[in-house]
């Protein structure tokens, strides 16, 4: 406590006893003050979270009905209609993104963990950290350039590519981390039985790290499920059903955005309902995985 001692001397005018009491009191008060401030920050941070979730429930629950989940949007001015096509479209786009992003991310993670103790591995590690920080809107521009401009029209595929690019870095790094946690002796046991290295990696190492890898995938999935910016000029949106990956497709976050900035009350109501559906999907996925991992349904050897 370097700055307590000089303080002590400066207060020399008072009698030693009173001086001491004063300092102890002041230090104790500071301690209490800072503790209360810390508690206050926690309250201030939890407040908006509570406010957002509460308001979302309040507005959303009243607006979700069967029509919302099964019908496509009605023209402006007509009541009713829903976001079924957007929910379906989101499923298509997210499916495409996972199809591209998950194998690529796991593959890159396996490379980094099993063969990546070299310069190239370091470069890939750094690259994936950089990629993780690239703003989603920029990824949208790139997906537009490489898919939309070649195809000459907006498509679900372009949206899927954009979201896949966003998934890869998270999956890569968590896969790597989880594989490195698997004890070396397990690999050696497999080698000792004459199991080839590729087989060991896939059936032993990756298998042992399954729960961690799945957590990584779900985190990446939760992150992209709510992404809107990269879909604005890739998937573009659509007022009708579309399951063709080469056509513009509606997506739930996109529809929420369009409805939110519109001037119509009916559309605002549906935006809240859509937001509730979206958050239930995301929080549900994250919580389910968290619980599953904690309670051992998926828990591996680590």
């Amino acid at each position, binding site marked *: *406590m370097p700055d307590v001692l000089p303080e002590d001397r400066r207060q020399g005018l008072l009698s030693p006893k009173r001086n001491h009491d004063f300092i102890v009191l002041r230090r*104790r008060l*500071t*301690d209490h003050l*800072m*503790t209360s401030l*810390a508690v206050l*920050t*926690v309250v201030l*941070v939890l407040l*908006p979270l509570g*406010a*957002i979730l509460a*308001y979302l429930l309040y507005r959303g629950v009243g607006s979700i009905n069967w029509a919302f989940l099964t019908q496509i949007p009605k023209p402006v001015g007509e009541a009713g209609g829903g976001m079924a096509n957007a929910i379906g479209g989101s499923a298509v786009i997210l499916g495409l993104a996972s199809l591209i992003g998950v194998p690529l*991310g796991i*593959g*890159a993670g*396996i*490379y980094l963990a099993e*063969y990546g103790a070299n310069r*190239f591995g370091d470069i890939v590690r750094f690259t994936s*950290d*950089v*990629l993780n*920080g*690239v*703003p989603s*809107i920029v*990824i*949208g*521009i*790139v997906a537009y*350039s*490489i898919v939309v401009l070649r195809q000459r029209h907006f498509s679900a595929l372009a949206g899927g590519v954009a979201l896949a690019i966003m998934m*890869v*870095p998270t999956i890569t790094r968590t896969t790597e981390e989880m594989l*490195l946690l698997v004890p070396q002796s397990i690999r*050696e046991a497999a*080698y000792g039985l*004459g199991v*080839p*290295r*590729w087989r060991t*990696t*896939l059936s032993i190492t990756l298998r042992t790290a399954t729960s961690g890898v799945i957590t*990584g995938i779900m*985190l990446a999935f*939760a992150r992209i499920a*709510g*992404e809107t910016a990269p879909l*604005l*000029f890739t998937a573009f949106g659509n007022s009708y059903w579309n399951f063709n990956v080469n056509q513009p497709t509606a997506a739930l976050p996109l529809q*929420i*955005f369009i409805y939110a*900035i519109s001037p119509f009350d009916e559309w*605002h109501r549906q935006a809240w309902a859509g*937001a509730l559906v*979206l*958050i239930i999907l*995301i929080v549900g996925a994250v919580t389910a995985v968290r619980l599953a991992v904690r309670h051992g349904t998926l828990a591996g050897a680590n």
Partner: protein
Amino acid sequence: MTGPQPIEDSTLRTGTPARTGLLRGTSSGELADHTFRYAMLVCAAAVLGVLLLIVYELLVRSNLSWHAFGLRFFVGEDWNPVEEQFGALPFIYGTLVSSLLALIISMPLAIGVAVFTTEMCPTWLRGTLSFTTELLAAIPSVIYGLWGIFVLAPLLRMYVQPFLSRTLGWTGLFEGAPYGIGMLAAGVILAIMIIPIISSITREVLSVVPRHQREAALALGATRWEMIRVGVLRNARAGILGAIILGLGRALGETMAVTMVIGNRPEIARSLFAPGYTMASVIANEFSEATGDVYLSALVEIGLALFFVTIIVNALARLLVWSVTRGQPARAHA
């Protein structure tokens, strides 16, 4: 970080080819091993390839605008698609001001939460608290925007802005008509969004400060706060700075929530009540409607600038965090 050593090669290859064949199958096993290794290498190379592709596409597509305006692009205030005059300064200004505002608001809150979770709170509360802050990070940007439009903006308009202009109006930062929507709303919503990132990285950094630092401070008779200040915060300051800069990186690139509450007007105003525009939101709003090659190219150039700024900011932040956590990778935050 070391991968498994290929021990089987050295031990098994000492035998005759026939024995090796017996133990490991034929050489097709080796072929499979090589194939697998190269397949994984291709995946890893693809990560690198994607980043290079991003840089390449951005450079190529912004070429036109770069040649037309050069560096003037970044200092020009005029954004006029009709006359094909493009200056990005209002967007750069809006991005910087909204992000800085967000940092000022979120910094004390995020660090306070991190300190509380790691140093003060009872163990049973710790898990719940970190889960709750993670939850804040899992809410999609568009939902923050929705809440911003319908809850935050009216709150600001009716209560906060009149109060601010009465008490702090003389600074010139808080004057003009209280719309609710505007730079202030963008700053507040961004602050809420980056708190989880700053606080989770700070928590990580604080938790690697060696235990004996805390014990030493307590042994000298420090109160808890003095222990935190001298033993913990002082040792972790580089990492905390890194966490804050990581939050800045996220704020700079944040698109949807900001687009929905900032007002989208390309003007530079001193007052935080006035509407503004950010680099990310101009791309979001105008990209799909951009007519003309120069217009599109100008938007891509804004994207390019945003890309480089966020990369530099993120790299700096990671170096700072690593300097405290000593190379353990800062966990990817979703």
